Structures are given as structure tokens and as C-alpha cells.
């Protein structure tokens, strides 16, 4: 919980001096950032964080977040900034040990809104759990539009026995996904595209490190994992097929999806396979472990609707194919960029 007792006036806003390295900046860091994200390492406010690591290997990643709008059903840019980086670490098999937080804020940005987003960062980090151990704040002049950009970097400890990667994937391997697809993309779309569109769809933004670690600790033969963010499940499957030279067959009737999400996608002309997720991972596992992996995923709060969506095959040329509900087959292509709503 935030330990910050004093409340800011409702209309208080970021000014350039908040990024100027002086007293104003000190107050912003103490009263807002450290207050929300408090931990021993961050409290030092040193030039860098010193972290303990139990393994000889670490994973490092970074990601920048520019979502429009900043707050959307089921999440906000803060939750995304934690989940995105944590999930990149998690799918590499890592146990997150520290995050950095870079804030680029436009002058005029409401402090109350900043606090909401910082609280959301804190809540997501607690859930992992991982500390935000270092950070940076800059204030820029008007012109960003949405007012806030976030970069997070993360470091994770990688156990000696974890070896995942494209080269471990073989024909016959099972492909799992941990739940309903397309929820994040459609939730954000519902506040973006000018439809006057009220929806029960909420973003699936979630940190998956705990769920993934439980698979690894149980000794499941995990070959490869990737979180299906921009480009959706289709993008990840295209990566796998391209990098391994193997084919993939997935089954439409095994793809989990919520009725409201599907209906919104139908309405706007989207293919849910190409729509972004922020709490979904595609997991390639040894077929002998597939059922056990599925059962373990379903034990976890972010894997209740996990499904085995298909398998890796030896097909040549390498293709991702979808067996449709009516028994037809089609090729799933890599999505080619931002999908736009259409009426035709």
C-alpha cells in the first residue's frame, strides 16, 4: 500500500521543474514514486541498484509502453509496463529479481493520474513479486498527446537447468495457450475506435512469472515460450514456424475466447488470432507432458481456461495452418501491422 498520507490538490499538475533535478524533482520522487513503490533498494536512491542473484545466468530485457489511451478497461499503462517486462523475463524461464522504471511525463500531466498509475505499477509488481529497484524521470514540454511514456527494464535469475529456445522444438510437440485470446486488444479498441461502445471486455494484462515458474519447477518438458502480445497468437506461431522450419497445425475449436470479445472482433472485422494479449503465453511442450502441463496451468488463476490448441508438425514447406470448425483448412499468416476496424 502507498504510505503517502498527504493528498495532492485535484488539479495539481506536472511542471517542467519536476524533471529539473532540483527540489521539485526530489519531492516528486519521494512523495509519489518512492511512496508508491517503496522497497529497501529503491529507498537508497543510488545511481544504480545492487541485486542478489543465485544463478550464474541472468536474463535481461527492456520494453517501452506507449498505449493509447493510458487507462483502459482492466488495466492501464502502469500495469502493462510491469506485466510486459516481467512476462518477457518469464518466458525466457527467468525469475524476476528487479525492474527499472523510466517515466517520460509531459508537463501538465495531472499528478492525481500519475499517482493512480504508480499505484497500479506497485500493485502489479507486488503480485509478481518483484521490486522496482531503480528509475529515472524526465519531464518534457507539451506535445506527447497522451502525456506519459514508460520504459521498464528487468533482470531475472535463470536457473541452470532451464533451457528453452527455438532449437528445442520438434515435430509432435504440443502447443498450449493459457486462456482466452484477444481480450487486451479488443478492450483497448473499445475505448479507441469511435464506436461509442460499452463493453464487458477487460484487458488480460497479468504477470505470468509465477504460473510459468510452477511449470518449470515441476520439471515439465517446456521447449519454448513466448508471450503473445502485439501480433497475437498468430505472430508467435509465425515466429516459431519461421525460425524452426517446422509447420504448425492449430484447431479453431480449441482456441479459447470470450463471447463478448469474439462479438466485438466480428463487429469490427478483426481476426482474434492477430489481436494483442498482455497475459497470454504460447507454450510448446513435450507431448508426453502436455496433459500434466495443461492441468498445472488450469490450477493457476491466469491459466484456468488453458487449452491445447494444436501441435508442431514436420510439414514442408513450413506453414501455420488452422483447421476450421467446419473442417476446412487455411493458412495463418503473420499479421502485418496495426489492425484497423472496418465496416466492409
Amino acid at each position, binding site marked *: 500500500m502507498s504510505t503517502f498520507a498527504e493528498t495532492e490538490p485535484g488539479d495539481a499538475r506536472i511542471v517542467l521543474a519536476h524533471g529539473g533535478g532540483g527540489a521539485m524533482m526530489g519531492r516528486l520522487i519521494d512523495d509519489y514514486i518512492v511512496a508508491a513503490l517503496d522497497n529497501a533498494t529503491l529507498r537508497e536512491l543510488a545511481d544504480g541498484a545492487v541485486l542478489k542473484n543465485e544463478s550464474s545466468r541472468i536474463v535481461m530485457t527492456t520494453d517501452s509502453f506507449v498505449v493509447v489511451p493510458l487507462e483502459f478497461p482492466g488495466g492501464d499503462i502502469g500495469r502493462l509496463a510491469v506485466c510486459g517486462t516481467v512476462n518477457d523475463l518469464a518466458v525466457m524461464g527467468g525469475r524476476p529479481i528487479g525492474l527499472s522504471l523510466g517515466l517520460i511525463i509531459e508537463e501538465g500531466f495531472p499528478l492525481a493520474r500519475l499517482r493512480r498509475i504508480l499505484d497500479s505499477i506497485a500493485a502489479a509488481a507486488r503480485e509478481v513479486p518483484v521490486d522496482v529497484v531503480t528509475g529515472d524521470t524526465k519531464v518534457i514540454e507539451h506535445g506527447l498527446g497522451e502525456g506519459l511514456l514508460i520504459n521498464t527494464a528487468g533482470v531475472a535469475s535463470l536457473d541452470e537447468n532451464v533451457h528453452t529456445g527455438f532449437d528445442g522444438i520438434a515435430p509432435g510437440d504440443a502447443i498450449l495457450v493459457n486462456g482466452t485470446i484477444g481480450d487486451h486488444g479488443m478492450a483497448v479498441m473499445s475505448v479507441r475506435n469511435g464506436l461509442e461502445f460499452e463493453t464487458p471486455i477487460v484487458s488480460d494484462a497479468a504477470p505470468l512469472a509465477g504460473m510459468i515458474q510452477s511449470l518449470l519447477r515441476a520439471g515439465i518438458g517446456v521447449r519454448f515460450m513466448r508471450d503473445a502480445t502485439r501480433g497475437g497468437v498468430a505472430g508467435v506461431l509465425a515466429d516459431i514456424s519461421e525460425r524452426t522450419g517446422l509447420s504448425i497445425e492449430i484447431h479453431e475449436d480449441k482456441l479459447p475466447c470470450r463471447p463478448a470479445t469474439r462479438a466485438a472482433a466480428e463487429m469490427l472485422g478483426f481476426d482474434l488470432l492477430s489481436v494483442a494479449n498482455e497475459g497470454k503465453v504460447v507454450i510448446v511442450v513435450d507431448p508426453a507432458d502436455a496433459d500434466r502441463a495443461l492441468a498445472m496451468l488450469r490450477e493457476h488463476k491466469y491459466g484456468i481456461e488453458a487449452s491445447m490448441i494444436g501441435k508442431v508438425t514436420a510439414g514442408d514447406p513450413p506453414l501455420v495452418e488452422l483447421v476450421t470448425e467446419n473442417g*476446412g483448412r487455411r493458412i495463418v499468416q503473420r499479421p502485418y501491422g496495426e489492425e484497423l476496424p472496418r465496416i*466492409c
Partner: protein
Amino acid sequence: MDSATKRLVEELHSLARSIDRPVSVMEVCGTHTVSIFRHGLRSLMPEGVRLVSGPGCPVCVTAQRHIDAAVQLGGFEDVIIATYGDMMRVPGRLGSLEACRGKGGDVRIIASARSALKLAQKHPDKRIVFVAVGFETTAPATAAVVLEAGRTGLDNFFVLTTHKLIVPAMLALLDDEDVRLDGFLCPGHVSVVIGSDAYRPVVERHRMPCVVAGFEPKGILDSLVALLRQIDGKAARLENRYEAVVTPSGNPVARQLMDEAFSVADTPWRAMGVIPQSGLELRSEFRRFDALTRFGIQLREDEDHPGCRCGDVIRGKVTPAECTLFGASCTPLNPLGPCMVSSEGTCSAWFKYKPPAHSKRS
């Protein structure tokens, strides 16, 4: 495969054997094209039955000159362009609306004509130009907002009208001797407005089987069975297999709206040239909403990319794979021709959902 689908597919195969010659059936509507690809229906087709994608994709048939006009209008300082997402990436000679936005143009994606009107009400200091594309399904919505703008006296709302009529295009296709078709899968949602009787000239004048089809896979398969039955029996009838929403006479209110706002005019189709009486223009009493007139935009004749065969693709003369640009220099990321742009464009749909190169059955 469920039993109903299985029965339909078996029937298609049996009809194809009985017909015993290659058959080309055109799905006129781009949404049918997408549905056919998306549900893998091509992989279920008997050998010898070719599905040809027709001109029913507004993005694909909007003339270059109209895209250019939209981009030019987006360059005005005080203009907000309101467009359906479909049109954002269509390239004209001046680039696309997406590129126009990149250069600082105010281009908003809307999902309803009413949103364009609301933009005009919300921004009285701006001029809103609504890029009105589409066939008879979409045109009544444009008509409704033009009539509303007329009633409410809005003076900052303008329309770039490129609406098109589907039956004249089907007739123009059949007048082309190089086009060889055995039947039409007629668009379901256009037919909601124009009614199934609108295809009578196609059936009667050209003895061409016409079946109005829905969009679900089973609906499409069922309509294909109906078409092949006609072809097998050497019949040419009009059949409505989308009776849940399509009536013989269509939606009279929607047509009335169109009649009030628009008159029928000759209009240019991308890669197909001017087709007589195939488009809609604002009636003189609504000419004050006409963006071209009000902004003094001059239209320039289309010039197609050399080598681009979109015109032949739209007419069903060639498949996208037969175009040398397809997948090479012309891709969804860098579309040279209109059919590669819209996700329902024939080339784009082929690129995205292209039929398996080798047939595998499980």
C-alpha cells in the same frame, strides 16, 4: 467436421462430378471472399470448381482520383477527415490517408456515418469531410446523415461521395466477352437493402444463375450447392438462400433515404473504368455538402501501376497468383494495387489466407 457441413461438401463433390467440366463461380462480395478464406472453404471445394472474387470490395474499386481527393482534403489546415478504417491504407498517387495523418493531417477513423456528423457538431471551427465509400448497404447511412445535416443546417459537414451500385457492375462484367462465369454468389447484406429481385436483369438478360448467400460457412456452402444444382440442371434462376434478412424487395426505407439524397450517375471504378449509371451523387439540393465542389478539388484520370492486374482480378479473369507483382513487389505492407489493400481485397485475402499449396486432409 459436423454432419451438416459434411453433407453439403459431399453434395458439392457429387454435383461437380455430374457437371463434369470446370465451373467458375463469382462471389461478388468481398466479405464473402474473406469468409471463404477465413473458414478454409476453398480447401473443401471439389476440383474443377473455381471461386472467383468479384468487384464487391469498396476499397478495391474506389478510383485513384477519389483517394487522391481525400488525401488532398486532408491537407487543409482546418479539415478533419472522417473515414472508415477500410480506407486508411489505400494508396493513391499522393499517398494514403494513413500517410496523410503521418504528415500532420487530422484523420479520424469512425465506425458509423453518425460519428462523422457528431464530429461536425463537436468541432464547429473545423470542416469535417466524410469519406463515404461502399455499396447499397452503406449508402443509406450516408444519405441519412446528409439529410440530417440538411435539416439541422450544419455548414461544416461535407461528403466525398464514392458510393457504388453493385448490379450495374455485375452487368458490366458480363458484357465483357473475356469474362467467363457460370454463376454469381450474390452479396447478402447489399441484398438486404436492394432486395433479391434486383438481380433479375442478371438472370434474365444473361441467363446467369444467381444465389443470394449469407456469410456463415454453412450458408455459403449451401448457396454453392444451390448454384451448382442450377448449373448441373442448365437452369438460370434467382434463388434467395439468405431469407432470414433478405426479402424480394429489400428495405424500402433505406432505398427511400438513398433516393432522397442521391441520384444515380456514371462513376469511375478502380481498374475497371467508368461504368454507366453505377454510382451515386448528391442531388442538387444537397450539393452544398459535396466536398469536391465546395473545396474546388479537380479529379485526375486514374493511372494504374504498370503490370498491376487488379482490373483483371476484379473481373475474375485472373487469380492474384497470376499477377507477376503479387507477393513480390505488391504485398499488404506495400500495396501497389487496390486489391492488396483492404483485408477483404482479393489479393490481400489471398496473401493472408492463401489456399494451401498442397492439399492435406486429416
